[in-house]
């Protein structure tokens, strides 16, 4: 144990429940203790402890060589992280908000994603940060970025929905030999309903494996991130009000997509609804739909539907953002329609 660990990385060791954010902090802390090659880079992650205080106290414990405050230059420090990874280090890059990953798009897609394929060596590195709306953050602090990278072979994209998965998947991402984009929904960071006691052992959650968050028989809902919880709420409502049984599949990893898990579920329910907070056009719903069409068309008893954010930048005013984001009502309505189709 490094000296002076901050309180928020000790809950599991004390047998106490953790929030989603604390689970992430614990994963980072434990990986840094386990492997001296793991280090952190990002804007204000050291002295300030990060915009969301994920890394509060890390600088004092690990020093400036392992907790590096960077210039506001996402392309520059992401590229530098790649160079460090070439030399055997395992950088974990924090995007203060994932909206800011766009300046690093060039180096991520052209250089980092292609490195192993080019024979230049795989790059073990994680790019993590907060995503998602609902916090009245407006267009530049609320986006989901997965589909900007989903089309890029060579990258992995992880998007957990529970504290257990956040910790286990982040550890898996840090230990992975390939670059992983790790999305953390801000709405989950301190959500009281996500507090849970985690196993006090060195568990990892494998990348590329979906999970069934709720078993059901009438409609498969494929989703991830915060929308898992909206979908579970919709499932509760439909079970109570209509006697409809939703199966909720949490993708957990978007790239590579756990196609087998989705197909198996659809083959049992015969109906598919895809729910994502990301905008509609070019969203992951399209990819999930075509894969189910390719592999399970004959099992389908209805159209594949999707509930997503609207095709618009994320609006600022509360009433606009609420209208923009998928709601429990939206999900319940679509699922009810499908169940009765």
């Amino acid at each position, binding site marked *: 144990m490094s000296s002076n660990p901050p309180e928020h990385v000790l809950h599991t060791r004390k047998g106490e429940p953790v929030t989603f954010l604390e689970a992430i902090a614990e994963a980072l802390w434990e990986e840094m203790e386990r492997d001296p090659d793991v*280090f952190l880079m990002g804007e204000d992650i050291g002295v300030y402890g990060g915009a969301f205080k994920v890394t509060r106290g890390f600088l004092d414990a690990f020093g400036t*060589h*392992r907790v*590096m405050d*960077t*210039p506001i*230059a996402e*392309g*520059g*420090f*992401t*590229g*530098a*992280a*790649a*160079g*460090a*990874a*070439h*030399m*055997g*280090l395992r*950088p974990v890059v924090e995007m203060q908000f994932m909206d800011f990953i766009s*300046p690093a798009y*060039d*180096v991520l897609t*052209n*250089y980092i994603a*292609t490195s*192993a*394929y*080019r*024979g*230049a*060596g*795989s790059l073990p590195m994680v790019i993590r940060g907060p995503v998602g709306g609902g916090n009245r953050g407006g267009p530049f602090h609320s986006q989901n970025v997965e589909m900007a990278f989903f089309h890029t*072979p*060579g990258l992995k994209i992880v998007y957990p929905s529970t504290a257990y998965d956040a910790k286990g998947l982040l550890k898996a991402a840090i230990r992975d*030999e*390939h670059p992983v984009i790790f999305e953390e929904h801000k709405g989950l960071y301190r959500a009281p309903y996500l507090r849970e006691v985690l196993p006090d052992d060195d568990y990892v959650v494998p990348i590329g494996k979906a999970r069934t968050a709720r078993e059901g028989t009438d409609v498969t809902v494929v989703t991830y991130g915060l929308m898992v919880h909206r979908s579970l709420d919709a499932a509760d409502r439909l079970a109570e009000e209509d006697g409809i049984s939703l199966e909720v599949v949490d993708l957990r990893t978007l790239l590579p997509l756990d196609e087998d898990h989705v197909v198996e579920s659809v083959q049992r329910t015969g109906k598919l609804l895809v729910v994502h907070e990301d905008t509609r056009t070019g969203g992951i719903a399209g990819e999930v739909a075509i894969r189910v069409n390719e592999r399970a068309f004959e099992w389908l008893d209805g159209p594949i539907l999707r509930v997503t954010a609207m095709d618009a930048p994320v609006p600022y005013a509360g009433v606009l953002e609420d209208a923009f984001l998928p709601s429990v009502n939206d999900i319940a309505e679509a699922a009810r329609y499908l169940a009765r189709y």
Partner: protein
Amino acid sequence: MDLLQELLRARALEDLLAARAPRVGAFDRGRVSVSPAVPAARALHRARDGSGDVFSARIGAPAAALTLGIDPRVLVRQALGSATAPAAGRSPGGFPTDLDLGLLEPVELPGILVEVMAGVALAFRVRGEARVALLVDDMAGSASGDWHEGLNLAAVREVPMVLVVDHAVGGPMDAPVAEMGARAAAYGFGSHRVDGTDPRAVEKVVWNAVEAARAGDGLQVVDVAPPSSDPVQWLAESLIAAEAITAEALAAVVGTAEEEMRRALEEVESEPQPDPALVRPSPGLSGRVPSSSTVTE
């Protein structure tokens, strides 16, 4: 003589590849590109076990890789996209990554290598290793944001990095200043300048920059002014004039170099093309970088 020999080997390889694989970016820069890359590479601490300095170059890449000990056949395989190339035909690259030799594959994207090499140097600093990351580039990259961000980070973190800028290539639209030295105070890097005509002078100035970086002086930038004549020819004539070599001996060295590269090409041309199944990623290429197969025997 060693320097001239290395330049002539590099020249022979470049001439051959320029004719056989003209689309490989590193070979379309004209006949001066072997310098400053070769003398810059000679200024590094070279090792074959991954403990030396690390080199990359958008300009003159294959030439410098030869200097750092790579087998010419490997460079030919890479350029021709052969099945036996380290990248197995998936990437042209001026040279393949071989971390044992200190080679990091260059990419054609201006600016990105500045960021990546800053990260390489950052790793050296973090680990307290007395190693240096050196990149040879031209001014074209200086117009990109990546270039600026990489240099800025390298300067802020005072990492042991050297950027050698070859002004023999590039155009008037690249930058509002003629040389990087004009930006030294703004960025906070050590500035060096040398005329590109004499490769020996280039090697000496780059060596000074490398040792300054190694000593903890942080980022160093070397402006190499366009040569007044072909540096290889200039050096050969200088050595003949100084009676350090005869014209006959020079011709023999050229002949040996050309023969070595011709044999390398012949051997590689008879090798198979990549299996189309390799289009998709495979576990074989996803792990650590191959190394021993690329070293000159």
